[in-house]
């Protein structure tokens, strides 16, 4: 139990520290690195409470794919050091909208933490049995594709829509770009590629006709 507590406090302190560093760090790339650290420590916390499937999926999806794209974008765009801040220098114009969002999140957190008081009542009033014999991968799978199949499909469609939207917004058809057609390259044969010509002396041949 002691070891459990030590690991729990280690990962939770790491999670809070890195979350703080994400918003206070000056360099955007460092922010992304701290975000990754945050994801990893939260994933470890998931694994500690026994939700190993969620923890691993968090690692694969967020750390393995999403954060790589974040890093990619931040590095490619070469976002300069953040000069705007709360008190020093030029005032940021994003502060009002940020404030609104953070107040909303604070309210939500208050609801969640306040609801914690009634957790016992809910646990005792529900007549669901907690089955400890199945792994949580099996139990998630058995409800996700049966009871919640519509929501699951719906979220898939939303993701697909956002992908199509992003492609439509950024896609430009460029003119005069040389492209390769693999079919054309493979289907070239000797007859169409090599010609034998009698060349007249001092006249030469015309290429490309």
């Amino acid at each position: 139990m002691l070891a459990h507590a030590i690991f729990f406090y280690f990962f939770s302190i790491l999670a809070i520290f890195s979350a703080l560093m994400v918003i206070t760090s000056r360099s955007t790339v460092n922010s992304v690195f701290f975000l990754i650290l945050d994801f990893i420590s939260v994933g470890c916390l998931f694994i500690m409470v026994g939700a190993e499937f969620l923890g691993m999926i968090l690692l694969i999806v967020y750390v393995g794919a999403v954060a790589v794209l974040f890093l990619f974008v931040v590095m490619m765009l070469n976002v300069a050091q953040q000069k705007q801040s709360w008190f020093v220098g030029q005032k940021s114009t994003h502060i009002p909208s940020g404030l609104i969002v953070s107040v909303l999140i604070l309210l939500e957190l208050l609801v969640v933490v306040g609801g914690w008081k009634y957790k016992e009542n809910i646990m005792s009033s529900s007549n669901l049995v907690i089955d400890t014999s199945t792994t949580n991968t099996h139990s998630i799978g058995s409800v996700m594709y049966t009871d919640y199949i519509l929501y699951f499909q719906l979220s898939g469609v939303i993701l697909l829509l956002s992908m199509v939207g992003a492609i439509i917004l950024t896609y430009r058809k460029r003119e005069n770009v040389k492209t390769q057609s693999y079919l054309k390259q493979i289907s070239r044969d000797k007859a169409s590629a090599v010609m034998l010509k009698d060349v007249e002396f001092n006249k030469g041949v015309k290429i490309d006709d």
Partner: protein
Amino acid sequence: MEYLNTLINEIYKILFLVIPILVSVAMIVWLDRRVWGLVQKRRGPNVVGPFGLFQTLADALKYIFKEIIIPASANKTIFILAPIITMTLALVAWAVIPLSETLVLSNINVGILYLFAISSLGVYGIIMGGWASNSKYPFLGAIRSAAQMVSYEVSIGIIIINVLLCVGSLNLNDIVLAQKNLWYVIPLFPMFVVFFISALAETNRPPFDLPEAEAELVAGYQTEYSGMMYAMFWLGEYANILLMCAMGSILFLGGWLPPLDIYPLNVVPAPFWMIFKILFLFFLFAVIKAIVPRYRYDQLMRLGWKVFLPFSLIYVVLTASFLLYFDKLPKGSF
């Protein structure tokens, strides 16, 4: 006190896993260079020790005594962290690889997801090293490799789904035991080929070694690294290759199971089969390095997204419908 005992016991077990892996990585580098040499009608390393076996140890010794140079404009912390991360991730993943039914450090429920997660983290070592060097070639190499590794992970993930459909469990031991009658390399042969090629791309091996293409990028993300830090990148890379071979042999070649459950084959201890299969896959890696020219970058991306991804998706549908139609879906023990 009891807790301390468990801790010491675990550390002892971890050391017994890590040291053989490091030694076998050294041997595998020798094997790689030797096969490479033989294919090209050269001798390869054959001077240090018997058959040149100690060549890698000599190289490692050389790297240790070389000076570590950190570029003045580099981001020092991340620059030093990058090779450490590569090396650690490559070793950490071995915790779940079963060498036999009992010879495994931790037999977790989501073993294959753990392997997949760790191998998808591998990109960070490269991208951090490339960015922190603050120089053009490493940066281009890192960007290339980030895109390459992320794209091929997608097809590896879908190939894993194929295998999982047949097994019905994420546990690596269950995956091996499900192949007792038939190795998955036979029914899922196309997936095995795609997995093998994706593993080449995932570990930045030729013909997909674009992140370190000498002709274009000097040495890619490793350009600014020297001495021990370079050696760590290098060891991590080979440990990753071994890991991919282990993954391939667990998913498709029946892990520690003998090919046939008959007399002379089933008395050979299970770890030997596992090691033999890893070595076989590594031999293929080494031969392919020697005989295939490097891909162009756009061809690499086309192969990943337009060929492998649709193909493995179609194969998932095929496998699932086959299992459903013939009522072969794993019922499992749950």
